[in-house]
């Protein structure tokens, strides 16, 4: 049982690989990705495309210590600014995780 910060990111599916690289660099303990997310924002509707892996979003969830999560947000900012999406953070309690109690 531990207070941690939860970071939620929605962005272009094709940027997931790049974001993961940044997460690894910051050194997070893990992350989760939901691939098929559609939506709408400033760039218009993004509902996927039947003929190519385009115009679709993904959702990325990372939880970790507050200052590490702060670094995560700073690291991914340029990608979100360029390819769209948003990033929200909130406080949660980590109840079960390997080694924790």
């Amino acid at each position, binding site marked *: 049982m531990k207070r941690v910060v939860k970071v939620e990111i929605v962005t272009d599916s094709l940027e997931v690989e790049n974001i993961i690289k940044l997460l690894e660099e910051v050194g997070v303990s893990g992350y989760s990705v939901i691939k098929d997310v559609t939506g709408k924002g400033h760039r*218009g509707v993004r509902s*996927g*495309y*039947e*003929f*190519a*892996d385009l*115009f679709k979003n993904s959702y990325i969830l990372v939880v970790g210590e507050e200052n590490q999560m702060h670094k995560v947000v700073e690291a991914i900012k340029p990608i979100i600014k*360029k390819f769209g999406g948003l990033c929200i953070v909130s406080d949660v309690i980590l109840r079960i995780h390997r080694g924790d109690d």
Partner: protein
Amino acid sequence: MDIGLIINNLVHPPVLFFFLGMIASFCKSDLKIPDPLPKLFSLYLLLAIGFHGGVELRKTGINQEVIFSLSAGILMAIIVPIYTFFILKIKLDTYNAAAIAATYGSISAVTFITAVTFLQTLGLEPGGYMVAALALMESPAIVIGIILARLFAPNNKEGNHFSWGMVMKEAFLNGSVLLISGSLLIGLASGEEGWDTLKPFTKDIFKGMLSFFLLDMGLLAAKRIGDLKSAGFFLPPFAILVPVLNACVAIFIAKLIHLQPENALVFSVLCASASYIAVPAAMRLSLPEANPSLFVPMALAITFPFNIIVGIPLYYYLIMRTDQWIPLFWK
């Protein structure tokens, strides 16, 4: 114009399934071919025509006609996006003009396939090397489009992120280019014997798979027409007139290099067709400033149906007619 040609084209099952898809979509029916089944059909079609083309190319070998056709294909893939770009610049900003130019300079494999099918109902079969032309014509327009954008864009502040390596990868190694070229080489390598092995798969069920795919294309084309509401008055007519223009230039070149009518048709169809697979994929990274809700629906919802329904028989009619005109005009 021989109305019989259009009708002959229209009662052909694959084209009828395209109409069925359009009608279903207009009626707001819930008929849908869910993802990733459309991908199955499109991968199949690329594999099958690539392989067939390779086997045929091995039979003919590389003769003068082949070299002329392929050169003409590359030539058109380079000049079409250039003159298209300048037409578009009249009304659009550089980025969108460049992306649309790339769209119309590149090709649509399914339009090609439908033209081949149309010819077969007339008892004609284009040369296998036209598949090689298809493969060669997919990528150059992408590179040209990007060069044009970089030449004419106000100031390339995003230069730091831009890499030609990336562009080349997107242009020449995208899935559809690779699958059709690879299948062509496999057809070349395995020849008649390989053909016997795969014929029931790549030939016999081909028209059925095409029908299924065109059903889906009909559903999607109709659905995307709405996206063009905000596109203004310039682009919809462009999406019909420019393909016809490109086809006419292609027919002229085809006459110059003495292509057979069947090869002239598929050549002009390649030039008239617009890409809705390779180009959008390449534009995301290379020209992110261009608006995909312009160039995608133009290719998919206007140019594609136009070519399938009217374009193919029209270009064929022009080819048969110009046999009489060209000599007059030429001498």
